[in-house]
């Protein structure tokens, strides 16, 4: 059963930023775009590069290593070389805290 973990203070992930946080065994990328927050597996499903090092493009993220693009809401591949989706997680801002359900 997924439970919410506090990963950061909301002010520490600025608008247009994406950062990686360790939650238990996993590393989760958290992206902040305007009023929207996204949480997804930081590990690119193609060759394992960090997606938090990637480039935000609207509601998708582009991996800096080989150009795979993922929809941050669904985790789906929008552009290869990746062929598998990445896991996405529920995310919410409670007061000052960013919380991710893992």
């Amino acid at each position, binding site marked *: 059963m997924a439970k919410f973990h506090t990963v950061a203070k909301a002010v520490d992930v600025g608008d247009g930023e994406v950062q990686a946080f360790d939650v238990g065994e996993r590393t989760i990328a958290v992206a902040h775009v305007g009023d929207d927050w996204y949480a997804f597996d930081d590990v690119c499903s193609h060759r394992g590069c960090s997606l938090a090092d990637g*480039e935000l493009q609207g509601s998708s993220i*582009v991996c*800096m*290593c*080989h*150009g795979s693009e993922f929809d941050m809401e669904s985790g789906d591949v929008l*552009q*290869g*070389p990746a*062929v598998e989706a990445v896991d996405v997680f529920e995310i919410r801002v409670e007061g000052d805290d960013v919380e991710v359900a893992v």
Partner: protein
Amino acid sequence: MRTAVIVGAGLAGGSAASTLRQEGFDGRIVLLGAEEHPPYERPPLSKEFLRGEQALADVYLRPAGWYGENEIELRTGVRAERIDPGAHEVELEGGERIRFDMALIATGARNRRFPIPGLDLEGVLDLRTVADAERIQRAAQPGARAAVVGMGFIGAEVASSIRSRGVEVTAIEPFETPLFRVLGPDVGRVVEAFHRDHGVDMRFGETVDRFEGGERVKAVVTKSGLRVECDFAVVGVGVQPNVEIAEGLEVDNGIVVDATLRTSAPDVWAAGDVARHDHPVFGPVRVEHFDNALKMGPAAARNMLGARAVFDDPHWFWSDQYEMNLQMAGFAMTWDDLVIRGSLEERSFTGFYLAGGVLRSVVSVNRQRDVRRAMPLVKAAIRPDPAQLRDEDVDLRTLLPAS
């Protein structure tokens, strides 16, 4: 039932087959590959795979079983001889004919072989396929001496990977730096510095005259008389497109396709290394990079299904050598200005190549984000203010004119 035949099971062909299914094509898909493998990614062959860090199955585009599960008839080890656009047939080696309603030619390219004496000696290797990479792996034992002929991307990446396996490397290159024709001398010297730091003995301005040895290569001798003793040689001197199948189609440094990737024959498209594309920004261009194959294959597939979309990707690729990640976008055969953001000396910079004031291509060393952000600028063919390109405080994304 309609039949789509894809000739060539590399990245362009493989990704086109997936796209046809994903876009709802419910006819027959035949994917023909000359090699014995399902579609795989070639970039690791000069990098992770060559260094022994990645297994063969890890470089497959999709798991081998995926094609059958998706009712794609993948036939490997099969060579197509001829395409007959009038009869709508592809003829295979041995005479079998397959009728198609639409066909995609994605036959790729093969390594150039110049008539150099001794090129057929044992131990004179080149790199295109998994089998080639495995041959280099076996030769690249610690302490072995290698001659790398040509410091383009393949030569430079192979030099880097076999250095990490403890091979002594001497590189022979006709121009004055590695990657000279693509990057020019300023950026080329930075690449040279990485190789020098890692102990590659580079001989510039040298052209191979002959390979010497009995059965097996013992030395490479250049036209100036330089003699490089070696246990094996790797030749990386470019590729030529596999156009032979296209008899009757328009061919000019590749199979000529229009902006929508259609050949001169109805119902026949081409994509990947073999396609000479009429690019809306760069003009006629044939691109030999991974990302292009991966985007052009699906774009051709969508057009085969009636999308009629112009392919206008700005082109992008990367190269990993030692601790250097080089990325490049766009296409410039020539340029008259190179603007640097960052520092060549510190080996962290982005270079913008301008021709007649228009941004044509962008290269970065260990600054991937700049290239990603400059891709829309290249696609828009902007005329930037060089001072803004140089200024680290200017966000490249803001240089895109409002449309």
